[in-house]
């Protein structure tokens, strides 16, 4: 009996030198993730138990936090606004997703494209726009008063802006969930004479329940960790994210800032854990025998859906359009004549061309280096063997960034990289650290996309390669990369657009040499120049749009050149 208790290790197979290289690369990625993710997070943890002079004060800072009612209020404010937004956006996005996947509504492509608008600019574009709509000089201010809301500053503004900003994210998750439908279930229900309503509640909703949960998690996390919107339109309504900013930048009170950052991390971590749990339970909806669902036309439903989607799309365009309009207005509200003053202000006084160059450089570097690192890391994890002790840590580190709000990450970077004892200290205030921080911030989605694409490949490619004595990197270059080109393009576009529009992580670690356009918007708003801020946001949106179109072109080109083997004729 006791002889069986100890798990026998397998015979130690000799490690081929190509495998050693794979292990080294994997170790390098592990080291990088530790230095640029785990290190900063631990630095925050360390900072939260230190006093202002660096002495160890255990939980004093935490007690001080709870002792200040205003700060505890922020926690409550953050949570309830996030819940409200989630409760509103998920049904709205669900209905839209339903229209896109389960109805025969016309112009689906156009509707879908417009909903991507909020992704093109930083989130605070919506906040600026809503001030123009509902602020004290707002166009529709009276409507708002009629609803009993006294002013847009504060919770109403935050909630409205987040609705706009979070909608596309929730929509993407729900469209994916609703696309996985097996027509046979519906056909069976029809054969049994089930009513449409009953079909919805017994087949559609349960089938999408994991998607709905996921969308709710995503929305909640996005709202509670967002910084730009509450900064612009929050007024005196304090939330955790603006608190962190005020404490760290405004008062340079790092210990308290670290405490608030930890509280910001908690909801994000929680939703992340729940989401992972939900993902595990998601059984495969589409087996090999499933028949994809093709909706049948139904006049009443289709018209209703079209009307609904039109309303949503119009609202979105109204928000984006107002920002565009305001950027060309000379002096709101007293002089509505057309003027390029705000653009000139940004470009001349705000030195936005420098900032734009920096932003584009950041985005390019993030897109290229990020895609390369993410994809290589995923490949090494999925397709090479050995060095098992490395794999679990790398896997964990790859998933953590999704749970870390940008503010928290940026904060960690200040603590970690500004410490004089840190040998990597020289990176502080460089473009490199901005690139690294942005890559780490958006790592997980890229990683998951890469893993999904890699899992779709035959699991035995590498075994075949080994048996034919071909080193794995040759197979990587000749087979894996070409097949996964669509995924690579997706990942790099994701990195690029996010690098252009991100604020929360970089707001702490940028330097005078590395000013970014997204931050310029923030500064302009702080200075009370909403017109110029709107103009800059429009410029970012324009750049993002151009880049998206470029990517479309690249995608088509790549498809023709590297994916032609998919044709079966």
């Amino acid at each position, binding site marked *: 009996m006791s002889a*069986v208790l100890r*798990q*026998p*290790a*397998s*015979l*130690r*197979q*000799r*490690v*081929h030198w*190509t*495998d050693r290289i794979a292990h080294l690369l994997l170790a390098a990625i592990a080291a990088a993730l530790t230095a640029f993710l785990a290190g900063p997070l631990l630095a925050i943890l360390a900072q939260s138990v230190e006093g202002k002079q660096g002495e160890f004060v255990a939980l004093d800072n935490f007690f001080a936090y709870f002792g200040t009612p205003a700060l505890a209020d922020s926690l409550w404010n953050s949570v309830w606004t996030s819940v409200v937004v989630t409760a509103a956006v998920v049904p709205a996005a669900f209905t839209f997703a339903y229209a896109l996947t389960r109805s025969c509504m016309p112009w689906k492509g156009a509707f879908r494209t417009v909903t991507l608008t909020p992704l093109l600019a930083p989130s605070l574009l919506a906040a600026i726009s809503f001030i123009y709509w509902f602020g004290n000089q707002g166009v529709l201010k009276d409507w708002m008063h009629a609803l009993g809301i006294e002013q847009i500053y504060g919770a109403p503004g935050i909630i409205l802006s987040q609705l706009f900003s979070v909608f596309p994210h929730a929509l993407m998750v729900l469209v994916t969930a609703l696309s996985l439908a097996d027509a046979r279930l519906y056909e069976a229900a029809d054969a049994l004479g089930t009513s449409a309503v009953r079909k919805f509640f017994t087949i559609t909703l349960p089938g999408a329940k994991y998607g709905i949960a996921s969308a709710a998690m995503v929305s909640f996390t996005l709202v509670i960790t967002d910084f730009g919107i509450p900064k612009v339109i929050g007024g005196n309504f304090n939330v955790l994210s603006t608190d962190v900013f005020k404490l760290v930048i405004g008062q340079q009170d790092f210990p308290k800032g670290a405490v608030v950052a930890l509280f910001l991390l908690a909801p994000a971590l929680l939703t992340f854990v729940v989401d992972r749990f939900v993902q595990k339970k998601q059984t495969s909806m589409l087996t090999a025998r499933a028949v994809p669902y093709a909706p049948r036309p139904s006049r009443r439903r289709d018209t209703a859906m079209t009307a609904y989607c039109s309303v949503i799309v119009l609202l979105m365009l109204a928000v984006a359009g107002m920002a565009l309009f305001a950027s060309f207005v000379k002096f709101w509200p007293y002089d509505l004549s057309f003027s390029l003053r705000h653009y000139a202000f940004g470009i001349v006084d705000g030195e936005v061309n420098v900032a734009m160059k920096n932003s584009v450089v950041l985005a390019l570097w993030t897109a290229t280096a990020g895609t390369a690192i993410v994809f290589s890391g995923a490949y090494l994890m999925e397709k090479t063997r050995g060095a098992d002790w490395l794999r679990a840590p790398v896997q964990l580190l790859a998933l953590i960034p999704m749970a870390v709000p940008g503010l928290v990450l940026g904060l960690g970077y200040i603590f970690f990289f500004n410490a004089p004892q840190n040998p990597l200290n020289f990176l502080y205030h460089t473009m490199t650290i901005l690139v690294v921080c942005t890559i780490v911030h958006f790592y997980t989605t890229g990683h998951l996309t890469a893993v999904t694409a890699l899992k779709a490949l*035959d699991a*035995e*490619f590498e*075994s*075949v*390669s*080994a*048996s*034919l*004595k*071909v*080193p794995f990197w*040759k197979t990587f270059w*000749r*087979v894996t990369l*070409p*097949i996964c080109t669509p995924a690579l393009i997706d990942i790099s576009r994701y990195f690029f657009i996010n690098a252009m529009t991100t604020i929360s992580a970089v707001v702490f670690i940028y330097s005078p040499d590395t000013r970014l356009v997204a931050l310029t918007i923030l500064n302009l708003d702080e200075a009370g120049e909403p017109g110029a801020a709107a103009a800059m946001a429009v410029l970012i949106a324009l750049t993002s749009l151009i880049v998206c179109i470029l990517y479309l072109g690249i995608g088509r080109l790549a498809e023709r050149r*590297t*994916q032609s*083997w*998919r*044709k*079966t*004729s």
Partner: protein
Amino acid sequence: MAQVRVEEARQPFLRLEGIRKQFGSFTALRSIRLDVSRGEFVCFLGPSGCGKTTLLRIIAGLEAQTEGTILQGGRDISALPPAQRDYGIVFQSYALFPNLSVLDNVAYGLVNRRAERAAIAARVAELLKLVGLPEAGAKFPAQLSGGEQQRIALARALATSPGLLLLDEPLSALDAIVRVRLRQEIRSLQQRLGVTTIMVTHDQEEALTMADRIVVMNHGVIDQVGTPLEVYREPATPFVADFVGKVNMLAGTVEAPGRLRIGAHGFACTSCNASVGKSVRAYLRPEDIVARPIVEGDVNVINSRIEKIEFLGSYCLVRVAAEGLEGQPLTVYLSLNYLSEMALADGSPMKLRILAERMRVFEA
């Protein structure tokens, strides 16, 4: 020279000694011992989970055994990684590189060896001819049928002239008709090239048709190694008897040496080694029970009534209820000719003779 070759011929090409594989507390393979001769076609046959694929992967180096040695061509490859072993492998999914042409797929292992372009092209052409697809070079895997893909995978595995060819259920993804045709092609290819081959399959018909020797595995152990005929006619364990081919099982006791009592009958049994009084199980193939010729004085004759005739084409599987066998059913093969000749149908009575020398008896 001839002396050396005789020596070589006498040494097994592949020798597995004491192979054990443990996954945590689950033992997938227990002390496997096997010799494979050069040029032999061996099938690992067994139900899912018996460890046959694990064993194959251990030979390939894709899994590491917990214990045991592997010798290939006299060389100890037990601890070598796959890249340092000498074999070609075809997986169930073929794992053809979809974005490379057939030509590039087949040449994949050759290109690495930095051979001349012309030499590579010639070798690829030769291989494509060998597998019967000489015109397929420029096509892509997605444009080929399942059977064609399988042959290309084979060509690719053979391109480097490996000493050992490993096939992991290569035919299971194919239609029945294609499967039958490909069986023969693979077998004739293998014989022509003389490459030592190990094939994993759960289809006993495949094993019986293709193999020189079959290794029947069950729950991580080898139950029997033998030629198809040996495994069929002389199953070493009840499992083998049951797994390979159809079989009838009758329970009874040993009455006297060479004599069994099953139900109300006594049966003569030539190969019965159990001691008197023991409970035994007797295994009979359907063809071990004949309807003719039955003459006066024959032993092991029983009366029966046809319960159900299952039409299979030129012969039928007939289930009979035999008298005095305590309700244990018997299934026999009867040709269509015989059935129509004798005008037999459900319910018809029939005399049957059990061939004494065919009874395989195991202790219960």
